[in-house]
């Protein structure tokens, strides 16, 4: 792994933490405005997982654009791919068959069971207080047996809520075996935020603190979370990225700092 970086920023820590979750056997897909996951896939491929596959923008199979040029769904990301994957027959077929088994999501609201909402804020879907863009591919991926990795650059009580206003993308639903009972396999694995990393307690499926980023305490995380978080007695610090990982990210993978765009509206300064 090499020497730990002394000057990393939170965006870099989030990218590296996500990257470490993926292996040579994984096939990664990405959606729109997903700079942090795409940076993570490219970094994993450059470091510990050279045989990993990334289908850029769900189209460019094993693409290698060199660096993040623009939006993660843009055709520029397909550069040097081996195939343009037709969406209707091929991509959605592989997704249904679970050949493509992993997806990264984020949203305006995330609850304690990893259910995510990016559709509306308010009590009545049809008369929303705020109309958000919509669930897009999340509604698909969370119901088609994917292993879900959630990321959020706004760890606060507005994002991490007791109950989502609209259940667009099911995590573990009401917890326990609720998801499995519906016949949905897999589900949320981890949640990487600007404050910490969380996972899900295996029986209750409640969100649980796994590690806190440097300088953050479990108490602070709880204060910024709108539901009661499971907090083990011993919460380690999130391992910092190596000097090599930070260099790769800054100089090779994302020299235009596109990943920092995701922190608009976040209290965390990057």
């Amino acid at each position, binding site marked *: 792994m090499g020497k730990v970086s002394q000057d990393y920023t939170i965006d870099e820590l989030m990218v590296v933490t996500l990257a470490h979750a993926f292996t040579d056997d994984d096939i990664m897909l990405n959606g729109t*405005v997903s700079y942090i996951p795409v940076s993570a896939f490219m970094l994993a491929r450059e470091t510990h997982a050279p045989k990993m596959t990334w289908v850029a923008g769900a189209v460019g199979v094993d693409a290698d654009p060199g660096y993040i040029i623009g939006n993660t769904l843009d055709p520029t990301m397909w550069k040097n791919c081996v195939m343009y994957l037709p969406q*209707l027959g091929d991509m*959605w077929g592989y997704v*249904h068959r679970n050949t493509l088994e992993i997806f990264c999501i984020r949203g305006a609201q995330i609850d304690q069971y990893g259910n995510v909402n990016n559709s509306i804020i308010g009590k009545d879907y049809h008369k929303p207080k705020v109309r958000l*863009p*919509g669930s897009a591919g999340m509604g698909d991926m969370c119901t088609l047996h994917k292993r879900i990795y959630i990321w959020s650059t706004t760890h606060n009580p507005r994002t991490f809520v007791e109950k989502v206003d609209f*259940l667009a993308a099911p995590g573990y639903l009401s917890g326990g075996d609720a998801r499995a009972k519906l016949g949905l396999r897999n589900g949320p694995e981890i949640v990487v935020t600007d404050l910490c990393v969380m996972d899900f307690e295996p029986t209750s499926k409640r969100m649980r603190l796994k590690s806190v980023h440097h300088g953050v305490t479990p108490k602070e995380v709880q204060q910024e979370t709108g539901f009661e978080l499971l907090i083990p007695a011993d919460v380690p610090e999130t391992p910092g990225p190596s000097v090599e990982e930070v260099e790769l990210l800054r100089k090779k993978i994302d020299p235009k700092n596109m990943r920092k765009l995701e922190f608009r509206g976040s209290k965390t300064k990057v």
Partner: protein
Amino acid sequence: MAARKENKVISAAQAVAMIRDGDTIAIQGMGTQMSPLALVREIIRAGKRDLKAAMVVGGIGLDWLIAAGCVSKVMAIIVNLDEFGMANAFRRAVEAGQVTMEEYTEHQMFTRFSAGAYGLPFMVTQSGLGSAVVDLHPDTTKVIECPFTGQKVIACRALVPDVCILHAHRADALGNVQFFPKPIWGDVDVFPRASNKVIVTVEEIVDTEEIRRTPERTGLPYFKVDAVVHVPYGAHPCSLFPNYNFDRCVMEHYAAESRTQEGAKVFLEKYVLGPKNQAEYLQAVGGAEALLRIKSFWS
């Protein structure tokens, strides 16, 4: 009329006359890519009303249509301006109850179109089981059981739009439409096949002989196409890969202006309602300078 092997080249204004108030209209497009925006501008100039827009990803074109009061209902999976943020006219109109948003998962949307394209009453998907999205529209998506295994699946009712509008790389006068690369996006693939009428705008009109030399590039045959309109830069300010990039300058300008209803109106006046045609539009957004801006993908 589509079936005939005859010249189908008409003007944008003539093509838009084929769209009636109240029609369900399938509009190709991603947030910043491949959308028939010259035709969208023509629809706005023609003052169409009560359109039901069926899309996968609603972007700047849909937001213009909504800001101009042309749309009463949206069927889509997401509506935004991609990296440029919220689609503000859409957000305001839904919050004010002026436009209905019928939200689907992506594969539910494609399954509705696919059933339409096959002429079947419905087709099934597993996408969205357990999501509240399914319960939003019981008249178009319903959980049913597989008659063989009992497994729960979602029946998605066929969607047959009145009109489909597309922008493509080139076509001949008969309506053999070519894309590069050949259709990879689901909307280009299934929207026209599901729709009753198909209008295609193209960057270039070529001889049928050229089509016969390169049939592997043809994504849509003449017998499914009703009208061909020649509109260079017809996707602007969206991109048409690999011909030209999206126009960051115009996207950013609209994203900023549309934060207020007044701002969106001023933008529409200046860039959509003011210019009478594509040439005047391109002039308004910067002329040669605008074309230079979108020349490269790799900067």
